[in-house]
C-alpha cells in the first residue's frame, strides 16, 4: 500500500515538474522585460502650441525631441522648438530669439521661467500677438511638463511688467486660463 502511494506521489510530482517546465517554455507568458536601454537615445513626443492664422486661438502641433535630462533642458527644448516656428498651419508668436536662461518648478506647481532679453526686445505687435505669445508659451509648458499649474515669466533675471503694453506679466499666470 505504502509503495503504491509513493509511486502515485512520485508520478504526480513528475507531472507537476513537467507542467511547470512546459509553461516556462511558452513564448511570451514570462517574457523578461526588455531592459530600458539607457545607452541609446530616447525620444519624447511633445505638443507645441502656436497661434491660429486668424489670431483667434491656438493650434497644436506634435513634434519629437531627443529626451532632455533635466527640467531646465526640457523647458529650454520646448522654447527652442517654439522659436523654430510651426511646420504646419500655425503662426509663430513667440518673439524671435527667445531662449531660456533658467527654470525652476516649486512643489506647488509654480514654474518660474527666466527668458532671454530677446523675449521683450523682440516683440513687435498688438494685443492679440501679445496675448497669443503668452498663451503659446504657457500652454506649451503646461501641456508637456506634468505638475505645472502656474507659470511666472521673468526676463534677464528681472520681473517684467508686460510684453507689449497690453497684458500684465507681473504675476503668475494660471495655466488653465488659456483654452
Amino acid at each position, binding site marked *: 500500500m505504502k509503495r503504491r502511494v509513493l509511486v502515485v506521489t512520485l508520478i504526480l510530482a513528475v507531472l507537476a515538474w513537467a507542467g511547470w517546465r512546459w509553461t516556462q517554455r511558452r513564448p511570451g507568458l514570462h517574457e523578461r522585460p526588455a531592459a530600458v536601454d539607457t545607452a541609446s537615445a530616447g525620444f*519624447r513626443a511633445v505638443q507645441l502650441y502656436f497661434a491660429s492664422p486668424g489670431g483667434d486661438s491656438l*493650434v497644436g502641433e506634435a513634434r519629437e525631441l531627443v529626451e532632455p535630462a533635466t527640467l531646465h533642458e526640457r523647458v529650454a527644448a520646448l522654447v527652442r522648438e517654439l522659436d523654430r516656428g510651426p511646420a504646419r498651419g500655425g*503662426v509663430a508668436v513667440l518673439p524671435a530669439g527667445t531662449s531660456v536662461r533658467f527654470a525652476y518648478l516649486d512643489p506647488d506647481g509654480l514654474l518660474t521661467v527666466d527668458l532671454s532679453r530677446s523675449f521683450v526686445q523682440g516683440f513687435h505687435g498688438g494685443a492679440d500677438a501679445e496675448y497669443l505669445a503668452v498663451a503659446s508659451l504657457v500652454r506649451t509648458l503646461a501641456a508637456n511638463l506634468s505638475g505645472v499649474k502656474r507659470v511666472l515669466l521673468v526676463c534677464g533675471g528681472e520681473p517684467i511688467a508686460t510684453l507689449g*503694453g497690453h497684458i500684465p506679466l507681473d504675476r503668475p499666470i494660471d*495655466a*488653465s*486660463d488659456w*483654452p
Partner: protein
Amino acid sequence: MTRPAGRLAPAAAALALLALLAAGAPAKAAGDALETVPVTRVDGVPHLGANELARLLDAAKFWRPDVRKLVLRSGAHHLVLTVDNPFVVADDRTLRLSSPVISLRGELQVPVELLESLPRDSALARLYYDPRRGRVVVLPAGGTLGAPRVAVIESATRITFPIDGSGEVTVANRSRQHFRVRFDAFFTGALPESLPGDGSILRLRSIPTSTGSAFELALSPEAQAFRIARSPRAGRVTLEFSPRLGPGLEPFAPEGPRGVRPIHVVVIDPGHGGADAGVTVGDAVEKDLTLALARQLRFELERRLAVRVVLTRDRDVALSIEQRAQAANKARADLVLSLHFDGFPAAAARGATVYCPPATFASRDAEARAGGPGRPVAVLPWSDVATRHAVQARALGDAVLGVMELRGLGPVRLRERLPLTLLGVNAPGILLECATLTAPRDRARVAQPSGLTDLAAGIADGIVAYQRND
C-alpha cells in the same frame, strides 16, 4: 542622460523616423476644448498610437529595432510594446491583451484596453478612454465627472454632478449672466435636455477649457447667492443657487444699478504715445490713430450723451500706466475706454477685440452679510480694482462689439483678461482693439477719411446701448 558618440548616427536616423511619423498628424485646434486624442479602429478594435500614448504618459521612447520593441519610460515606470504581440510588459507585470500591438503606417498602435491595466499611482498619468467620443484623455486629479441632475428644493436650485475623485472646483466667473465653474475632472456625461422652469438656471452649457471641464450658467435675477458643497464620500459635487444670502453662501459679482445706467464722465485713454508708437504698418501709426479716434469719439459722446469726456492725453506724449489710472480715477470716471489698434504676424487676422476684467470679485458688504462678522474678507490688490466693475465692463464690451459687428467692423472677439491699461482703474472699463492694422482691409478702412468717424460713431452707439441697459 549621456550618450556615446558612436551611437549618434542610429539615434539621428531614429529621430528622423519618429519625426516623420509625428509629421503625419495634422495641426489641431486647441481653442475648442480640453486636449483629447482620437483612437483608430482596426478590425473594430480601438487602438491608440504609441506616439500619443507616450506623450500622454509623459514618457520617453526607446525603439529597439532588433527585437521590434518600443520601450516607454516615465519616471520609475516602463512599458514594453512588441510589434504583432499581444503581451505587454508593464513594470514587473506581463499583460495579455485580447489583440496584439500592431504597426500601422509606420506607427505602433496599442489596443486601448491596455489603459485599464496601467499602473495606478500618482507618478503615472491616468488615461481614460471615452467610448462615446472615441477619444483618450489624461484624467485630471478629480477623475471623471458624470451627467448632472438639476432639482429645485425649497426655492433653491441645485445642480449635482457625480464625481469619482476629489478634484478642485473653482468658480472662474461670479457674474449671474456668465457664471462659470471649472472642475478638475473630465466630463463624461451629457447635459440635461431641459431645465426646471421654476429654477434659477436659465441656461447651462459646457465651455472650452485646457484642463478638466468647465460649464457656464446663466442665472435668473432671483438668484442672490451660491455655494459649492463637496461630498467626496458620496461621490458628488453640488452647486446651489439660493434666492437669499445666508451663512455659507457666497454672493455674485456686483452688477451696478438696474435700468438706465447713469453716465456723467467718460474717460478715453488713447493707447501708446511719445516714443512708444505702438503698431506701425506703412503710414498707419497706432499712437496717432488712437489719439485721432479719441478726439472723434469725444465729439460724438459730447454731442449725443451730454457727458463730460476726459482724454488721458490730448497730444503725442508718453504716459505711464499709473498716470493713465490716476487720470481716470481723478475724473471719477463712470466708464473708461482704452483705445488701441491691433497688429498680428498673419494678415488673415482682422477685426476688433475687447479685453475686460474677469468677474472674480464679490463685494465686501455682501460677503459680510453672507458670512457674518467673523467671516474673513479677501483682500483685493488695488491694481485689480477694475475687477469690482467686471459685470458692467463685460456689458460695455458686449454692447460695443455688438454694434461694431452690425456695422461690418468685425469679426469681433471678447477676452476676459484684465488688461494692463486698466490696472488701478476704479471704474467699469475695457481695452478696445478697434481694428487690425496688419490686415489690409482693416488698414484701408481706417485710412479712409470716414474711417475713424464711422468707428467713433459705432463705439458711441455701443456706449448708448450700454447706458440704456435694456
